[in-house]
């Protein structure tokens, strides 16, 4: 089994996993069911409604692709922050967390542009079941991005003071999960039209 450098943690004796990291993994497993339930239901409805392809063609592919690129890059910066903290480079870690926050802000800005464009064109949630799914899934995801940004900002402040190095990994795990969700939302809602 490959080993990666990790910051010091408090281990849970029964699982040999640091308690904080164990909690994050449990949390993410529950999130799998929340997002996965929505995605599974959408896939089944989409299977029954091939005409949704026409609706999906009105989503903004370039904006979705840009946001995918932004989230992939912010995943890189947050894992680089984790790598820096394991080497005791707190300022470098803080800088990478700052870049991650910037990525989150750009994502939210692009999403706001998309929503305003779509709503102005009449594609509101009540227009059809496709748009209800679209706003529910992307809206819930955007809320998770916002939550992640708040968590990262909190950890960033602590890291700048040289505290809580293990939390960089925890917020990183959460941020990567948000990235994975978007990796599936993008083809489902944008490309498969």
């Amino acid at each position, binding site marked *: 089994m490959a080993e990666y450098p990790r910051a010091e943690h408090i281990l849970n004796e029964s699982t040999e996993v640091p308690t904080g990291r164990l909690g994050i993994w449990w949390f993410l497993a529950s999130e799998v069911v929340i997002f996965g339930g929505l995605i599974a239901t959408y896939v089944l409805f989409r299977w029954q409604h091939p005409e949704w392809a026409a609706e999906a063609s009105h989503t903004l592919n370039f904006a979705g692709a840009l946001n995918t690129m932004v989230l992939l890059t912010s995943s890189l910066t947050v894992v680089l922050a984790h790598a820096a903290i394991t080497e005791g480079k707190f300022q470098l870690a803080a800088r990478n967390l700052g870049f991650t926050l910037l990525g989150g802000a750009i994502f939210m800005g692009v999403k706001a542009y998309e929503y305003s464009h779509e709503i102005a064109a009449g594609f509101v949630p009540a227009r059809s079941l496709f748009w209800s799914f679209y706003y529910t899934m992307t809206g819930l995801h955007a809320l998770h991005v916002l939550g992640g940004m708040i968590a990262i900002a909190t950890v960033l402040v602590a890291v700048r003071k040289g505290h809580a190095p293990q939390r960089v990994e925890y917020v990183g795990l959460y941020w990567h999960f948000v990235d994975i969700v978007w990796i599936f939302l993008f*083809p489902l809602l944008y490309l498969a039209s």
Partner: protein
Amino acid sequence: MTQNTASVEHGHPNYVAIWGILVGALLVSLLMGFIQLPVVTVVLIFSIAAVKAYLVLNYFMHLKAEPFFVVVIVVAGLACLYFLFFGLVPDIVFSPDKLRAEH
């Protein structure tokens, strides 16, 4: 509870190279839109998404370096999703007339 010192056996993977692969996969997904074979396109696009998720999970989230217990937690979440999906199939897929009447 015990304290664990940092383990540095094999170092970090090349994160920038993995990011490059992820971005390359994104570009390939976008190019798939030009293929005029809808079923092939959908299969390829979602296969690429699965590969991207695998890379993020294993290399950015270090799942492959986690103890077996963490893998069990992830599999448990996915198993719940599996049962949910197939539990919904009869209601959604095999009731087309009812659904079309409602929507």
